[in-house]
């Protein structure tokens, strides 16, 4: 963005925080862009004349962000889109994993649990974002909050697996035709999302995670060796991808 370097760190931080805050409140991304740009112009001109950030946004950035947020309508449509994307995205990961095990079958509890946990995770994430940008926290505190945020869904999914073993709910069997159809839909979905989001990170990470394991299983190696090598290959592959990706981002 032109002129962005002219802004002080404090102003830039405020604008970034505002973006996250408004996004977490489910506002339309065009509206967010609009007000952030307008304030950017204001902050730049104010700083040129030696005014402090407080002179513009007052002494409570959180209160000011809230005032701005109140004037923007919630954008439920794109919200719904994001929620569906995240839930379906996480579905496709477990689906792809299960596809290697043969035909698909899920219990009703598993299917419902997956959706519910997805929704819980999304709301938790948005609330955390809002909390972090609204309250100036130390880097250490911020990191621990993100750590907890990462641990909770893993714990919940592990919990779901255990409950699923203990509680009987009706099973849904997909059969061979259903499995193939689901696989095709998953692949189409992943490609469509990647196309839309302009990043191939999802299918690439997925392939890196699953393909080595599958290939090593075809070899005559000892099982432990297979596991170790495939894990190394998976994370090595993801690392190489991230390295190349960041190089390409810098170049463009």
């Amino acid at each position, binding site marked *: 963005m032109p002129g962005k370097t002219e802004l002080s760190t404090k102003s830039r931080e405020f604008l970034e925080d505002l973006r996250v805050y408004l996004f977490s409140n489910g506002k339309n991304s065009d509206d967010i862009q609009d*007000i952030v740009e307008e*304030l950017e*112009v204001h902050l730049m001109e104010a700083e040129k004349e030696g005014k402090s950030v407080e002179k513009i946004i007052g002494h409570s950035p959180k209160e000011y962000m809230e005032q701005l947020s109140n*004037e923007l309508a919630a954008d439920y449509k794109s919200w719904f889109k994001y929620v569906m994307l995240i839930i379906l995205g996480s579905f496709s990961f477990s689906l792809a994993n299960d596809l290697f095990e043969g035909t698909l079958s899920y219990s009703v509890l598993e299917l419902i649990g997956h959706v519910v946990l997805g929704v819980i995770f999304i709301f938790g994430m948005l609330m955390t974002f809002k909390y972090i940008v609204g309250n100036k926290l130390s880097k250490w505190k911020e990191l621990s909050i993100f750590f907890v945020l990462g641990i909770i869904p893993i714990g919940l999914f592990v919990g779901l697996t255990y409950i699923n073993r203990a509680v009987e709910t009706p099973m849904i069997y997909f059969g061979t035709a259903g499995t193939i159809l689901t696989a095709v839909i998953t692949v189409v979905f992943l490609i469509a999302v990647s196309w839309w989001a302009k990043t191939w990170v999802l299918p690439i990470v997925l392939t890196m995670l699953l393909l080595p394991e599958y290939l090593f299983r075809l070899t005559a190696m000892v099982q432990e060796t297979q596991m170790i090598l495939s894990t190394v290959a998976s994370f090595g592959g993801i690392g190489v991808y991230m390295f190349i990706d960041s190089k390409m981002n810098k170049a463009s």
Partner: protein
Amino acid sequence: MSTTQMMKGILDGCLLAIIKDKEVYGYELAERLERYGFDALSEGTIYPLLMRMQKEELVTSTRKKSTAGPKRKYYSLTSKGEQELDGFIRRWNDLQNNVNRILEHETSSDEF
């Protein structure tokens, strides 16, 4: 009505009056408010007000290139905004007259 609410209503009227005078962008608007004496105000206060006034179709905005930096958003008054401004001027004059009358009569020593 709390003081801040009353203040907001007054600020709304002032913004409309400044915008009617000349098409302005946010920073200019804030500066003119300050020059008229509203210098205790944090400048960003005008943006939530502008956003609401635009939603209520009292003002419209267009983006224009500036010599340096990103595009500026210029505001101008709609006909609905002009009506609102006329209404504000009437209400303000009434309020001012009433308050002045009270202050003149009640605070001068020769009464009663």
